[in-house]
């Protein structure tokens, strides 16, 4: 597939090896510190911060200007249980996924349901780079330069009926390609959902690439959802079906642990996960933890969607 970008990224900008080495440098320092502290030689409180310098030169209205997480980390530290439950399993196993040919069905309560080949599905849209924060429910975060297009455009093309209130997404189900699906750890295939107004929000995109390249399989190739103000698991990967429905979909994680994962799953430092606090997060590549922001720092753009809602109840 040919990926057209608004502003082609010069090869000189792609993963600078120095970054990689800088990261090693802080790891080395952190290692020394940890070792010294264990030995009781140093008082705690010393810090070694990562030096990551890659960031977007001309951030758009939806971009964060924070330094990007390294390509290496983004593509080797993944939660994608279809390829194993370890963080490094997806990078090891996702080569089994065949992303071509790939079909996507748009169906349900809409006037123009259709089945698309991936290329045809993507063709009408202009790809743009969006640098978003990604906050995992487990308490770590990244900054990722996605390549994609607003989901709203797909929705407009499908012409949802007035009765459509939610959008439901489904990941591919094929245990041969996705060996993790052979284990009954979740109710496969993976299902996620958004309220229609959330799906139409300009921050919500379908991504087909990152770092100016095609999406690696372990990151949800060939096409995935990105909803930056919600915990990472809402951003469903390797999508084969988009369906307009009237009732709130029951997502995979709601089914697996209804007390721990709600439908909304907005990033919220004030609502703890039952087993851990959500107040802070570790940005991958950084040593100190940072405070988690309401709606992952996108409150100005999205808080109005939840006006008057009790976010403790609708977690």
């Amino acid at each position, binding site marked *: 597939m040919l990926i057209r970008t608004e502003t082609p990224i010069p090869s000189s900008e792609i993963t600078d090896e120095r970054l990689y080495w800088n990261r090693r440098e802080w790891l080395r320092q952190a290692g020394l510190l940890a070792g010294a502290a*264990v030995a009781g030689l140093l008082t705690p409180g010393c810090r070694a911060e990562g030096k990551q310098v890659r960031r977007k030169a001309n951030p758009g209205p939806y971009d964060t200007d924070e330094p990007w997480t390294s390509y290496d980390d983004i593509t080797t530290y993944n939660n994608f249980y279809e390829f194993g439950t370890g*963080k490094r399993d997806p990078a090891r196993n996702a080569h089994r996924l065949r992303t071509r040919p790939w079909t996507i069905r748009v169906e349900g309560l809409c006037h123009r349901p259709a089945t698309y080949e991936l290329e045809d599905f993507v063709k009408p849209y202009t790809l743009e780079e969006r640098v978003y924060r990604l906050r995992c429910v*487990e308490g770590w975060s990244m900054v990722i330069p996605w390549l994609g297009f607003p989901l709203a455009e797909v929705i407009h093309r499908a012409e949802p009926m007035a009765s459509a209130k939610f959008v439901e997404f489904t990941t591919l189900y094929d245990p041969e390609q996705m060996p993790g699906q052979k284990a009954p750890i979740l109710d496969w295939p993976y299902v996620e959902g958004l309220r229609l107004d959330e799906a139409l929000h300009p921050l919500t995109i379908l991504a087909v690439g990152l770092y100016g390249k095609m999406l690696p399989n372990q990151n949800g190739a060939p096409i995935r959802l990105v909803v930056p103000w919600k915990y990472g698991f809402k951003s469903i990967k390797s999508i084969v079906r988009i369906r307009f429905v009237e009732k709130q979909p029951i997502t995979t994680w709601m089914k697996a642990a209804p007390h721990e994962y709600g439908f909304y799953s907005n990033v919220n430092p004030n609502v703890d996960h*039952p087993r851990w606090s959500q107040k802070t997060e*570790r940005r991958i590549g950084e*040593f100190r933890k940072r405070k988690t922001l309401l709606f992952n720092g996108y409150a100005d753009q999205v808080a109005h969607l939840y006006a008057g809602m009790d976010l403790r109840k609708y977690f």
Partner: protein
Amino acid sequence: MRRLTPWLNGLIWLGVAAPLLYLSWGLWMDRLGANPIQEITHQTGRWTLRFLLATLAITPLRRLTGWNGWIRWRRRLGLAAFFYASIHLLLYLWLDQFFDWGEIGRDILERRFITVGLLAYGLMVPLAVTSTAGWIRRLGGRTWRRLHRLVYAIAVLGVLHYWWAVKFNWRPPLAYGLILLVLFLLRLRRPASSRPVVTLPPQPLSKIRSEA
């Protein structure tokens, strides 16, 4: 068995040090993934449990092999468990909470896996402190043995801590729990020939001393 002892001794030293060496090497070489702190936290937690189970395997091993020499390594394995548990706890207090005692207190009260984890560690401390020959003498064999039965509670709490901490993949904690159960069951049938009461107090004491 006697001829094998030096080899076993070296092997057990290696086994005790290997996780630390591996984690240090991994940190140095950047082989622990994108989130090395969490990786080390998880690994040290698992190694704590493994060494606890190894400690509890000594008695069944003595019965099964009919060789009492295993006892000489029990203290080392127990202290290894304590060592990895200390790193595990320190990483939580320091790099997870940055010594925010208010937050740590809330964690202890609100999250049962933190509660039992910390309780297990708290119970390990007196056992580590009294692990020396001097303390065995001071306490007397009977009291010392009674005190060190806390290890059973510690192991149960440790497995529970792991069980409650995992997100959904309950299989590894279940495996540890089952091994622990087997180690407990092996203690139920106690052949008269190898009652630990007879072998424990004065005899291993001298062994420990001569070893040190």
